[in-house]
């Protein structure tokens, strides 16, 4: 099923042991369902992401993309019967804090920022560094934020001060904070939920470059976007979701963009790919 198709980079090759079935997925969902009251958002999902791989997640509104991501992230607990594996180990007490401590980071559609707070507080949300006295290392948080902003967000040094309140930033800059935050913590797996939404052309380009950068660093990513023209060029493998189910899984080598678009239309009309 899984075929490692584009090991173009030595670092990636080193990270992904062998292009065969014995590679252990970074994250795996087995038979995961999620019900909210009467609404079944996910049903019987099987989903894997291998090291050094970028997986695209496509599907219409309400297909369950965001729910799937929030389940991977530990924000939603799967219904009974569903299992979450991290690097081959089944994890029962999956939570956001746990997922993040294992190196899974998400750039959420809604950005998940606290906008009345300064940048440095947002950058370290939920995992603030402490000094040896157990107190918050505010100095380091400020300094690191300033460094990250100039190195990763493309601001010339001190162009944006870490003490600036997030409300005062533009949409792209806010997205920059959310993305930098995900990258900074040396994540094994970065999840991007519609990262290009509401961004300008250059900002979109930057974001896509960031996604390919994840792969170059030998890490994995899940990339969700409405826009197939953004998703197709950067991913290795594609999951198509429809009404809470996996409607299809493709290696990029197996399918051209045109065929994919064709199938997405078909699935939207009939609920089946074939």
């Amino acid at each position, binding site marked *: 099923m899984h075929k490692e198709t584009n090991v173009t980079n030595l670092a990636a090759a080193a990270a992904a042991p062998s292009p065969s079935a014995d590679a252990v997925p970074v994250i795996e969902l087995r038979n995961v369902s999620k019900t909210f009251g009467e609404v079944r958002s996910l049903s019987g999902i099987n989903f894997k992401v291998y090291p050094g791989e970028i997986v695209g997640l496509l599907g219409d509104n309400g297909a369950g993309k965001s729910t799937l991501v*929030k389940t991977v*992230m*530990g*924000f939603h607990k799967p219904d009974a019967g569903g299992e979450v594996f991290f690097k081959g180990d089944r994890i029962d007490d999956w*939570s*956001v*804090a746990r*997922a*993040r401590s294992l190196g899974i980071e*998400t750039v*959420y559609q*809604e*950005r*998940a*920022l*606290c*906008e*009345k*707070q300064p940048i440095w*507080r947002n950058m*370290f*949300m*939920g*995992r*603030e560094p*402490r000094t040896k006295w*157990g*107190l*918050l290392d*505010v100095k380091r948080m400020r300094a690191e934020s300033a460094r990250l902003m100039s190195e990763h967000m493309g601001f010339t040094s*001190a*162009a*944006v*001060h870490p*003490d*600036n*309140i997030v*409300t*005062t930033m*533009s949409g792209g800059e806010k997205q920059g904070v959310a993305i930098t935050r995900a990258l900074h913590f040396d994540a094994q797996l970065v999840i991007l939920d519609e990262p290009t939404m509401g961004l300008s052309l250059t900002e979109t380009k930057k974001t896509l470059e960031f996604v390919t950068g994840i792969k170059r660093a030998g890490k994995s990513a899940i990339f969700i976007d409405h826009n197939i023209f953004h998703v197709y060029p950067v991913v290795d493998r594609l999951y198509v979701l429809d009404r809470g189910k996996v409607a299809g899984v493709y290696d990029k080598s197996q399918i051209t963009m045109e065929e994919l678009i064709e199938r997405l239309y078909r699935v939207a009309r009939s609920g089946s790919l074939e």
Partner: protein
Amino acid sequence: MATDNATPGIKAPRPVDNRIAPPSILRRWGSQLGIIGVGLVMWLCFVFAAPAAFTNADIYVAFAETTPVFGIIALALTLVVITGEIDLSFPSVMALGTAIFCLGTTQWGLPWWLALIAAFATGAVCGWINGALVARLNIPSLVITIGTQFLFRGLELVLMNGTGVPLTEDQYPALHMIFREPLFGVLPIETVWMVVLAILTWLLLNRTRFGAHVFLVGDNQTSARLMGVNIVSVKTRTFIFVGILAVFAGLMVSVYGYYFWPTTGDGYLLTAIASVFLGGTSVFGGTGSIVGTFVASYIIGAINAGIVSAGINAFYTQLAFGFVIVFSVVLQTIIERRIRRQSLTGR
């Protein structure tokens, strides 16, 4: 109508890329500077109105002794308000905790220190109940703490059978030492405690992970949750903190008056809440300051003492309260809006 950014005061020509500059002093410390300004102006007014009273140390000792009773609670309440909640039950917790102390020493034969621990534990439990109801069950704190306020007060009245307990110095020397004797014979111990607790609360809010999460929870609960912050635990802990400091204040005011009244706590509800809001903590959550609350407490404490010593009829106290609070909050809102507009247009 205010028109765009041409307001006087901030019309200095902006550089093309003004984001290069760090946020101005005004933007960062605006509300704190504002409240300190209000305090200074008020003090000057009093000094001019009644120079005899206000150049004498007695008046300062007077409000250094009385202000901390509600000021200490206001410190803890600031954290609750930053998370976007409110606690209206603390006056009853002041009484219930002190009642447990009195019962412990008079009825259950506990040593004073054990009774003291029991009293603080009571405050913590009351806070935990508030916090659990608010955070776990998602009940609006405004509603549920009105309920628990009656609950805690009712429990205290039943336990005490409506009677008080004398707290004389020879029976409770340790308590008088802790809560009443001036430090080195001169410094009012109440204010010493207030300063110590303000510093600790400041550290808690600004230099601990818990404090960082208090801001995040109040700012955007969903974002905080998505980033792995435990909302229930953070909110519950802020309520527990209020419970503990409420008992502290209850003991302090009782020892100060040599007597525990079953009505202890009555009259402190609005002064404590006013201190928090006057200090610049936003009712919408996400922002707030311990420095602001600290200064605001003394402003409110000073109005009371000041009005009387200035020879003005005490009936004017409430009028002065109202004036200062309304004026300061309006001023803060205007300053904040201007700062916000400056940052929105200055890009």
